[in-house]
């Protein structure tokens, strides 16, 4: 855990600029097992201190890989010099950022360091179960991971904070062969916020998920190619989460709006069916704690929800303090940094479509010829809103019933067109939080939503 070292340094902050000083420790533990062999067994601790100084519209930043008073003083000086350089050579003459009010957000939890043997023993138990209960696989692999970000933030004119966000997961990967010998693969992540010892107390609790993954890979090995073209589909909750994050969320990050995203022209316009409401939640959603809660961001802004789409109307952007000033909006705690050496960028927290009232079985029964798409391997989206998601698990829907499984495929569309085709919204929200969002820096994010009935373009063979 980080010790409080910097509180005396506030007096040294420049009076003619706005300053953030952040100490940070990132911890990562990882064990990977491939075909019964441990192929990765690593522990990483990255710590240091950084300062960022805002002056007349541009920033100076500096970081040192050392958590000490001396390092903090050095980065404050270097960041100020960089801010002066920018102001002199590329000054924009913009006003100061509106102050946010000084408060202190104290540390609310402690975390313990789990020994490496705990990850290995847990994986061995899962691997033994997989080996015994999953015949016919050509490969099985497993990973156990834990990462955490601990931050100590001091600011000149917003909140000070000491926060920690741990998360841990087991990744289950199975590979089987189709009847003509082509390998097919499925991955499932299990876990969430919290350290490994709290999330994984008994391997037997994971066995049902192994059984479900095995059932699915056995279906998939007998799978068929989707028919290419525009189809009516049910997106499962995991796919809806991917849509919320990739296809909508990125286009309404204010820095991307300034960079030309399609959302720049759509504020206040109908961009989705009236059944669609989408929010970037800070820490609490639908009455429960979010998968990866954020209470204060790395600019010292107290975190609050960002309503993005309300009943189909685009209502807001996610902002930093600077972009909020530009757009005349309120910052709501979206400026986040991954490592001590990273500057805060506008990032999502927990982005999700709100649930509706439809039952999944009714949604499936409503489709004569289409697909139920459950799991996504990855997703990418354009600033135009055009998106592509890899689909790793799905089923045909024929005459209102699930049919054969699908081989890997992709779906694509333009977010603000596709969302207008949503005509049924499921009543149960599913979250995921195991991945990293990539945008100059990686960042843990949560994403989720209910099942949606809509039209997308699906790739075939």
């Amino acid at each position, binding site marked *: 855990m980080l010790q409080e070292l910097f509180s005396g340094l506030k007096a040294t902050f420049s009076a003619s600029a706005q300053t953030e000083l952040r100490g940070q420790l990132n911890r990562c533990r990882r*064990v990977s097992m*491939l*075909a019964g*062999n441990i192929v990765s*067994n*690593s*522990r*990483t*601790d990255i*710590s*240091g201190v950084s300062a960022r100084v805002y002056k007349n519209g*541009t*920033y*100076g*930043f*500096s*970081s*040192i*890989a*050392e958590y000490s008073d001396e390092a903090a003083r050095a980065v404050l000086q270097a960041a100020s010099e*960089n801010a002066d350089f*920018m102001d002199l050579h*590329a000054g*924009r003459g913009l006003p100061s950022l509106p102050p946010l009010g000084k408060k202190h957000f104290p540390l609310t939890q402690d975390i313990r360091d789990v*020994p*490496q*043997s705990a990850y290995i023993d847990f994986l061995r138990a899962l691997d033994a179960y997989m080996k015994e209960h999953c015949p016919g696989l*050509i*490969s099985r692999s497993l990973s156990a991971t834990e990462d955490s970000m601990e931050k100590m933030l001091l600011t000149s004119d917003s909140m000070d904070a000491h926060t920690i966000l741990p998360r841990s997961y087991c990744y289950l990967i199975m*590979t089987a062969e189709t009847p003509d010998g*082509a*390998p*097919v693969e499925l991955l499932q992540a299990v876990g969430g916020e919290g350290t490994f010892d709290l999330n994984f107390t008994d391997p037997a609790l994971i066995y049902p998920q192994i059984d479900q993954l095995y059932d699915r890979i056995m279906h998939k090995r007998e799978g068929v190619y989707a028919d*290419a*073209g525009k189809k009516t589909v049910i997106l499962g909750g995991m796919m809806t989460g991917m849509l919320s994050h990739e296809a909508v969320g990125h286009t309404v990050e204010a*820095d*991307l709006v300034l*960079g*030309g995203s399609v959302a720049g*022209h759509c504020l206040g316009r109908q961009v989705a069916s009236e059944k669609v409401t989408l929010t970037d939640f800070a820490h609490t959603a639908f009455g429960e704690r979010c998968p990866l809660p954020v209470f204060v961001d790395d600019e010292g802004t107290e975190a609050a929800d960002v309503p993005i789409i309300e009943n189909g109307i685009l209502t807001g952007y996610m902002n930093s303090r600077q972009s909020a000033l530009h757009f005349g909006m309120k910052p709501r705690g979206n400026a986040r940094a991954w490592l001590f050496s990273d*500057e805060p960028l506008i990032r999502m927290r927990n982005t999700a479509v709100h649930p509706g009232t439809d039952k999944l079985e009714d949604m499936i029964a409503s489709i004569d010829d289409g697909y139920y798409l459950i799991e996504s*391997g990855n997703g990418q989206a*354009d*600033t*135009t809103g*055009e998106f*592509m*998601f*890899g*689909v790793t698990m799905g089923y045909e829907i024929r005459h209102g019933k699930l049919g054969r499984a699908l*081989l*890997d*495929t*992709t779906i*694509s569309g*333009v977010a603000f067109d596709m969302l207008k085709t949503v005509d049924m919204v499921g009543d149960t929200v599913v979250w995921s939080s195991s991945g990293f969002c990539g945008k*100059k820096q990686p960042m843990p994010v949560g994403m989720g939503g209910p099942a949606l009935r809509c039209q997308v373009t699906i*790739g*075939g*063979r």
Partner: protein
Amino acid sequence: MMEKLEHLAGMILSEAKALGASYAQCTVTEDTTKEFNVDGGQFSLMRTLFDRGVSITMLKNQRKGTVQLNCFDDEAIRSAVKDCISACESTEPDPAWAFSEAACERDFTSGEPVCDTDALFLRTKELLENVAQRHPKILVEQMITSHNAERSIYMNTNGVTYRTHAGAYSFSIMYSAHEGEKGSSFYSSDVTLARLDRPIIECALVERELSAVEKQIDTVPLGDKFMGTAVLAPAALMEIVLYTALGSFVSDGSLIEGTSIWKDKLNMMVADPRFTLSVTPHAPHVVVGEDYTNEGFLSEDYDIIRDGMLIRFALSQYGANKTGFERAGSSGWNLAIPAGTRSLDEIIRTIDNGILVMRFSGGQPAPSGEFSGVAKNSFRIENGKITDALSETMISGCVPDMLLHLRDISQDVLQDGTFSLPYIAFDGVTVSGQ
């Protein structure tokens, strides 16, 4: 400065041996980065980063552990060595772990070790101005320009010592074209340079890529489906063909698992005889190539596919010991494909029905090599000419089949300081609209 790194590395190896490690290696690195950021076409940030890193790998009775930290404090390093031994002790022995045993001492230097900050700023400003003057429809969404200077030492308990002094400039510019409310897809041009001796817009394919994106504001959907020729620009070639081939067919994971569809294809034809795929860390066009592998072996240029024949897998020594195949010459990815004999324009003139793909947005490659995804920043090719810019167009195919149905390789080559890749035309690719 190097003496300090050498002292730390020596201390790590001594501590490791004292705690019973049968083998240990470490890399101790100190680096400085200067960086300028542009957002939405405006300068936004200047960064100076002073970073350091320590990576320790040990074997104890063939049980392996790895620890990484970024602290040079003696106490923290001793603690990390103990953590690493504990990690070793908690795992299973695996006889396949192996590292360089040939005692060797080498110094490597490349590029400019000290950043010329003023020159970096001026080249960044010049690039912004050149884009504004020559390509007025382009909006620079984000530009990151930087210089990284690194000093590092690698040492292992078998008597290997490598010292590195490296410095390189890099430019990454992400942009799209706009006219009123209409906009193109975004595109990214990236260049790594040893020196700032010419305008960035003249490097690699930056100017050509900016011009192409400017023509992608007005797009049309394809509207039909056909099987035809896909001309893959270097970035799309990398996404579709090379990541699939390297990730799923020739590297450690798939070969150890036994899922690689090329596992029985060594010394057999897997591609058109005009196709050669090499890894070239020492090629003149590579600015910061790999000097040694993660396992302490000196890196060498090598071919994976030569004249269409699969001649070597991209295996680590661990992977080689697991599979019985030969270790690769490098663990890096400085990929090179030799240029062909015709220009891109000449190749396009031979195509009746096809698509030129600058960027690909697709799912993770399937182990079989089947792929499908969106052809981004793409143009229709009809009767030997580039016609419409396309939207919402998907392409799908099978990488092993495509390599055997290669139509042509261009003379035009992207050399961006890391890769040397031409445009390649493949037949038999499915292209579909909405």
